[in-house]
């Protein structure tokens, strides 16, 4: 009998939600973080130490940043996993699932530690 895979739908769901977050938020954040200041559109002060520290003092900002950083990591883990299969990479000694999704889980832990413990 066909055994239902309970894990796959969960990871697929995370891939999907992460894809939406990345599609919606990644371009504007890449532009502001990396290009707005060199293009002289934004004063470096706006992304400076005092401003960023003040922003991180706000719990809603922390939650927003957590969602922004963490969910696309699951999206990336899923895509990298399947791309490696597409490129003909078979299982390593450690399972590819553990390698890819484990990486996303480590990223989640780091983001939680930085956002909710350090600040």
């Amino acid at each position, binding site marked *: 009998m066909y055994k239902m895979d309970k894990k796959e739908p969960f990871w697929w769901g995370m891939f999907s939600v992460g894809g939406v977050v990345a599609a919606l938020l990644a371009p504007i954040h890449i*532009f502001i973080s990396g290009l707005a*200041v060199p293009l002289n559109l934004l004063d470096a002060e706006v992304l400076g130490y005092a401003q960023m520290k003040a922003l991180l003092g706000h719990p809603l900002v922390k939650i927003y940043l957590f969602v922004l*950083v963490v969910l696309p990591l699951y999206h990336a883990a899923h895509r990298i996993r399947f791309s490696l299969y597409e490129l003909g990479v078979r299982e390593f000694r450690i399972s590819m699932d553990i390698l890819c999704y484990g990486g996303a889980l480590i990223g989640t832990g780091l983001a939680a530690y930085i956002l909710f413990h350090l600040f």
Partner: protein
Amino acid sequence: MNLHHEDYQHKVYIRRKSPTWWLRNIKYFMFMMRELSSAFIGAFLLLFLYELFLISKGEAVFNQFQTSLRSPAFIVFYVIALIFALYHTVTWFGVVGRIQQVKVGKTKVPPSLVTASAFAGWIVVSIAIGLFFFGVI
């Protein structure tokens, strides 16, 4: 006739693909680039997370790293990451209408309208975040 599954010896056929199959035509190539976009977005987000971490190390350390982020190598990275991120947005919202069925009451919203709303939402959200940083909000 009594056929049991166990009677058959299945041999799994594994089709050998060359590792460079995706270079053969532009559609395969763009498929791989779409997959690769997630790695660039992930790299940007981890870099961003590292910046947030450096805030805890004090102003001098944070500012020094911010200055290095304005170097040409990082600017090239940001430009490439932005192109990949935009490609992800376009491909993701481009198919969302066909994947996600939206109903208002009993009528189905046409896929093209779902996609158009997704793009409109993206533009509104991007402008709102932009205005936040530009100090208008």
